[in-house]
């Protein structure tokens, strides 16, 4: 039986992973909820966020506050890209069969993924943690938790809450929720649904890109991180419930814990465990934790 501090450390690492996944999966969930399409390219936006953060850091140089600037800049850049993709390309496919929309998002994975390789090459890139938080760690229950991890763990719920409040309280948020339920009626009420879709895409891309930017101090930025993360995001969204916001949050938490404890107790089968969980959810309760039950 491994000692409690180790278990605690694993749990914290699971929490951290969960928050990153939440950032990405929430964007995925948002796009699915409103646009009804599973965006395979969301993992690529995440990866581009990481690369963009790296690039901004290169341009800005080290120094106080630079990391945060780079991260926000990266997220904004990815958001802009997402908006352009939606406005110029994706919009034309709204009438087409779902399958072709999915194929388009996969084609984006190919194009944007390779574009990243073209620009940044195949070698790993790394970004140093912000000096305000880097290097220092907290000692809790015998485990050492870097401040940056703590920051991420606290940031997750903050973003979740901010997002949720936006959805519940603001006009734009209400439109988004309405569009998820019935876009035609919304259009008939005079709301510019087209613009709404673009903003949803922009917001989702921002979250994905932010996730990538924020994770860059912790994990090496390499090609292939997009295809890896998108499947994890799928698992989270399935567990939490496709289209449900808090479902994504709790789904990410569960995923993080299953993964970290899986590694702890069944190191060989931890990856198996998450997919088995995904399959189990789909078999027993396809709408996940908090999704809308199927007919």
């Amino acid at each position, binding site marked *: 039986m491994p000692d409690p501090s180790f278990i605690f450390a694993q749990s914290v690492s699971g929490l951290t992973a969960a928050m990153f996944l939440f950032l990405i999966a929430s964007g995925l969930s948002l796009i699915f909820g409103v646009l009804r399409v*599973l965006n395979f390219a969301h993992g690529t936006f995440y990866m581009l966020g990481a690369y963009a953060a790296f690039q901004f850091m290169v341009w800005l140089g080290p120094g106080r506050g630079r990391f945060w600037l780079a991260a926000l800049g990266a997220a904004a850049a990815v958001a802009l890209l997402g908006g352009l993709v939606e406005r110029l*390309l994706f919009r*034309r*496919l709204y009438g*087409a*069969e*779902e*399958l*072709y929309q*999915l*194929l*388009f998002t*996969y*084609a*984006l*994975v*190919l*194009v*944007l*993924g*390779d*574009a990243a*390789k*073209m620009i940044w090459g195949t070698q790993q890139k790394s970004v140093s943690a912000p000096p305000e938080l880097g290097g220092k760690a907290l000692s809790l229950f015998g485990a050492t938790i870097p401040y940056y991890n703590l920051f991420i763990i606290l940031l997750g719920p903050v973003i979740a809450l901010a997002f949720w409040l936006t959805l519940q309280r603001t006009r734009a948020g209400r439109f988004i929720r309405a569009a998820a339920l019935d876009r035609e009626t919304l259009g008939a009420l005079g709301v510019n649904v087209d613009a709404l879709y673009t903003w949803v895409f922009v917001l989702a891309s921002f979250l994905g890109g932010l996730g990538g930017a924020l994770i860059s101090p912790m994990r090496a930025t390499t090609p292939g991180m997009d*295809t890896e993360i998108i*499947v994890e995001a*799928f*698992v989270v969204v*399935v567990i939490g419930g*496709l289209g449900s916001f808090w479902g994504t949050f709790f789904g990410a938490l569960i995923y993080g814990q299953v993964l970290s404890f899986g590694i702890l107790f069944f190191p*060989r*089968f931890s*990856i*198996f465990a998450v*997919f*088995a969980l*995904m*399959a189990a959810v*789909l*078999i027993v309760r*396809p709408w996940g934790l908090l999704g809308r039950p*199927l007919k």
Partner: protein
Amino acid sequence: MTRRTPWGLLLIAVALAVPALGSRFYTFLANDVLIWALFATSLNLLVGYTGLVSFGHAAYFGIGAYTTGILMKKFGLSFLLAFPAAGVLAGGFALVFGFFCVRLTRIYFAMLTLAFAQIVWAICFKWNEVTGGEQGMPEIPYPSLDWMGRLPLLGSLRTSDHFYLVSVVLVTVCLWLLRRVVGSPFGRMLTTIRENAERAEFIGVNVRRYELAAFVLAGAFAGLAGGLFGIFNRGVFPDFAYWTKSSEVLIMTLLGGMGTFYGPALGALVLILLNQQIVSYTEYWPFVLGTILIVLLFVFPGGLAGALGTAARRLRRAT
């Protein structure tokens, strides 16, 4: 009255003649195309004919490859047993997985097929004792094909050429079987499910049972394709079952046109040849492929075969 050109026989003749070109490379390409054509056509049974989009078809491809690989390399079984075993085992897994998958629809169906495929991948990736783990199983032996060397015309050919000819025969038989199936009353029932599952129910079609049957058949033939591929590739690796492999075969099917029987095979041919060409100029094949796909999506929603079909119809009307 003009006789219809026996395209099928012509193609088989052409396929059989490839080794005569004497190039190892061409035989390699042709073998690749054949196997992927079978793989893509098996997926089309689900996607094009039954209307079920699977994101995890590579699972059965991988299961087939590992089955043949393990049986031949570890147990020294003959190809005559190991090859059908690939289809049987893959079909068996398809039965179990499919049972759960067909209870769901659309995106949930797709997600579950993906989950099962990733489970297969994870097992192949980690179960070192049986599957060789991350390293896979290199050096899968060729089946014993010396007897082919004693046949007229074939004596001068290499083993890889002999195996290629075996592939031609096997793939042709499999495709012919699949063709019979889709042209049968069973196949017609599948298309009614694709067209309108609710209506199909009310002409007495037990939709779930038919979908499961299609799932099993598709999985079995994918397994056979995998069995061939493991030997062709001289090695079996976990990425045979990874989700990106599933997306490759799905793209071939869609590219070639899921509305026709030979569309996916055409898609396989075009994609593999294109890949070969592009890769000689640049390493950024995914970029090129992605761009082509995007262009095609906006211009040709029916895929290549659909576009060719429309062009052919226009020609016929004009003459």
